[in-house]
């Protein structure tokens, strides 16, 4: 999210930046035990108590999509940081064994139907495993690590969060470059990653909790071109790979353990082992490169091959997923989908009982996911789809099943122009998006900054008779929230704050052209050849940009 200050004061701001504290962002030193992270008792109490510590293992991976090895590196860095304070570590093998034992006792901690973790069951497994572990090993204290997605505030060229600082561009800019090329006169928020160190007594009473920032997960794209995102994302596989940044995060998270409040107060802004924002970014490895957020490929196999393999397709009823469109909407969608697929010459057969048949088949197999690992059981999946295909009673049986659904998603907006899933809509007015500023007839409003708005999409999933996805794509329908901008004057600056308000369900799905365009976008790569898509894109570029 980005908030734009009035461009008009840029000159004044640059003149004043050197001398004024108004525009500088300096973390003020926290001094009370609470502010330092001591949730119960004092630093002295904690250090006197916690000599023999159990560092509970992090999940591997710590977050979905992360490198599983990163968890071990984080644990090693934590042992090193806490070891410097005189803490010794006891083995947690018996804890791991207890977690496995109790997971089996509760029948696995994953939902066999969804593959997601059963949160309450998992928590009770951990709590009981911990109880057994503590009674056997009698640690003085428990240390836990958590990898957390955070929101960093940024202003100018720098982002600040959880006691660290980074360049918002994901690159290190020299002081000379910063002086000559200046700083953006803007501010906002951006995605970041932190770790949280928590220390508790063996009974689970929290004694200490503090975050330390690791790295940004999103950068500002300073070279953003027309139609490109102003943000770049860092792939999850590149998170937590930089040991120096992990060390810096742990330094930030353990400062109050290593120094007294008075020492912190005296060293803040002066000493980089206390105030890690002083660690020069040039002394750290270059952060991983960011890239454009790319939509996953719609076709999961070559189009020609797919089209050759399909002759008869069962079309299920529209899944509403909590939306409440007008009653006639579903039949209009089905008619449009049939019309758009007509050139493929498929025999499309209505299968009104598809969703209920699928539900029944799932129930009879007890779910597709392994309750102990959360991994999809492909054999079961094949069996379920074979059973569903059979239960539809279609002769001859279909080669594939086409599922249609309404989906909740988020649209990225830039200057009020929101774009997602092949469509665009003005988030302030719900009108069309026309590139260019207001005064030149466009729909961009710079006061809107950047951010995300809830939106709806139409989704199609084509599965073969064994349940394997062969095509999956979305087409954006419309925005579910309206953006409004609140103007605040904080002399001499003007700030524009974003506000989002949810639209009433009765307002939605009424724009016929948007409904139809969403279906066209979702089926585009299935219905059109690459050459036809290229020609369509070229034609769109030649026309005045209007969606």
């Amino acid at each position: 999210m980005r908030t734009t200050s009035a461009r008009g004061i840029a000159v004044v701001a640059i003149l004043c930046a050197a001398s004024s504290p108004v525009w500088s962002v300096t973390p003020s030193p926290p001094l009370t035990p609470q502010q330092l992270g001591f949730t119960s008792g004092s630093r002295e109490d904690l250090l006197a108590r916690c000599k023999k510590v159990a560092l509970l293992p992090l999940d591997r991976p710590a977050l979905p999509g992360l490198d599983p090895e990163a968890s071990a590196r984080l644990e090693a860095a934590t042992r090193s940081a806490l070891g410097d304070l005189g803490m010794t570590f006891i083995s947690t093998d018996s804890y791991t064994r207890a977690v496995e034992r109790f997971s089996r006792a509760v029948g696995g901690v994953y939902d066999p139907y969804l593959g997601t973790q059963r949160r309450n069951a998992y928590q009770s497994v951990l709590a009981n495993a911990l109880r057994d572990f503590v009674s056997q090993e009698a640690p003085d204290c428990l240390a836990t690590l958590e990898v957390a997605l955070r929101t960093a505030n940024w202003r100018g060229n720098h982002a600040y969060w959880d006691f660290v600082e980074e360049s918002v561009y994901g690159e290190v800019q020299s002081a000379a470059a910063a002086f000559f090329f200046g700083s953006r006169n803007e501010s906002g928020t951006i995605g970041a990653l932190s770790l949280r160190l928590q220390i508790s007594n063996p009974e689970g009473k929290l004694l200490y909790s503090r975050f330390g920032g690791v790295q940004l997960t999103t950068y500002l794209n300073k070279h953003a071109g027309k139609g490109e995102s102003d943000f770049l994302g860092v792939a999850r596989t590149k998170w937590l790979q930089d040991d120096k940044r992990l060390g810096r995060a742990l330094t930030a998270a353990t400062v109050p353990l290593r120094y007294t409040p008075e020492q912190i107060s005296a060293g803040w802004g002066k000493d980089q082992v206390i105030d890690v924002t002083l660690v020069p970014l040039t002394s750290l490895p270059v952060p991983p490169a960011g890239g454009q957020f790319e939509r996953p490929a719609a076709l999961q196999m070559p189009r020609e091959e797919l089209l050759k393999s399909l002759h008869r397709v069962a079309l299920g009823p529209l899944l509403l997923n909590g939306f409440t469109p007008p009653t006639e909407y579903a039949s209009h969608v089905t008619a449009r989908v049939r019309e758009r697929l007509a050139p493929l010459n498929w025999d499309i057969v209505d299968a009104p009982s598809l969703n209920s048949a699928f539900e029944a088949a799932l129930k009879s197999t007890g779910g597709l996911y392994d309750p102990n690992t959360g991994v999809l059981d492909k054999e079961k999946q094949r069996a379920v789809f074979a059973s569903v295909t059979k239960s539809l009673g279609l002769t001859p049986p279909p080669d594939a099943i086409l599922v249609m659904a309404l989906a909740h998603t988020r649209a990225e907006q830039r200057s009020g122009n929101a774009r997602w899933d092949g469509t665009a809509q003005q988030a302030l007015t719900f009108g069309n998006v026309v590139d260019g500023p207001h005064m030149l007839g466009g729909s961009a409003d710079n006061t809107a900054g950047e951010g995300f708005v809830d939106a709806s999409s139409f989704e199609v999933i084509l599965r073969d008779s064994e349940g394997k996805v062969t095509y999956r794509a979305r087409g954006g329908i419309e925005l579910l929230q309206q953006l409004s901008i609140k103007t605040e004057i904080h002399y001499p600056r003007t700030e524009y704050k974003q506000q989002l308000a949810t639209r009433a369900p009765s307002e939605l799905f009424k724009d016929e052209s948007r409904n139809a365009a969403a279906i066209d976008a979702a089926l585009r790569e299935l219905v059109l050849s690459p050459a036809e898509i290229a020609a369509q894109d070229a034609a769109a570029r030649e026309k005045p940009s209007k969606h």
Partner: protein
Amino acid sequence: VVAASAMLLARSPALPAGAPAGGGLSDERLEAAYTSGGTFVHSTALDAYLAEVLRQLQSANPELASLSLRIHCLTDDLPYSFVLGNGAAYVTTGLLARLDDQAQLSATLALTLAPWIRHDRDSLDAEGHRRLVRNFLPNLLLLTATAGFGAPALAKADAKARANSETQAQSASDAVAVDWIARAGYAPDAAALALTGLRDALLSEQRAGQTEFSDPELLKARSERLSRKSSEPAPIPTISTNDSAAQFARFSNHYALAQAAADLAKHPVSVLPILERTEKRQGETGYSAYLRAELTRRNIEGPPGVAAAIAAYEKCVTHTDAPAAAYRELGLLYRRSGELERARATLLKYLDRAPTADDAPIIRTYLDDLK
């Protein structure tokens, strides 16, 4: 600089005019966003109670009577109350949990509604704009003469002027609110007491926010101003029936104990002050005794600590409304202290009360070991 300043003036917001009831589409959408948001408290009983408190305040005050107001509750750790331009008013669970009685709730609503009725925000914006225009040329000259280095001093002076205006506007609105409270039959010092109570509760919980009802410094300054206003002898309150007191206490205690339960893991220092406050008002219940026992268990230091925790859970399970988890914890503490028969009997009571709990299979493995 001239061009820049001209743009600043040109970009000043259009100042809203008209009655507060004329909330536009934006407020309607904001209200819809709160209603469908995750923090909205869906409780018909609480909505009805809040609406009745608001109705009493409205019916006693002609300025409020004609307005279309509605009120709902949002979940938030901190005390907060606000009203949208279209008349949708909100209080938070953190506010209900820390007020003493209905008079204080009504007073807090009056303190929220008075600046809205009097258009304080619009007036302050208009005054800020007038100040900007009035000082434009002198400031421009100063900025030009100092090559911009005079900006911090100008910003500071402007902030001071704005703060003075805000204090004046708030004092005037608070005087109106105190009148409304008295006319509704409550003691006029309820407003000052509410703010003092909120401050005391927040300080005892070592918690603070940055809003008018959650910042201890702001609460102190405002309650002192309000105390001076309501120093005349208070009339005998006409609204303080047992019914309304009991209703308020039911909601307030519920949200206070919910806060204490959440704080056990993340902010344990607040648990005891919250329990003391609620038990002073309603006495000990099964749930408050359970939370106290949980706190005692988490503070176990050696065998005496285990005995203290056992005693706390034993006291808890004497209450008929003790949660099932109290039996589980007590059973496991018996097991820990070697009282295996009692452990077995108590864990069986837990399974009787929560046979389908997520951890029931684990407890059964403990029972197998205890055979």
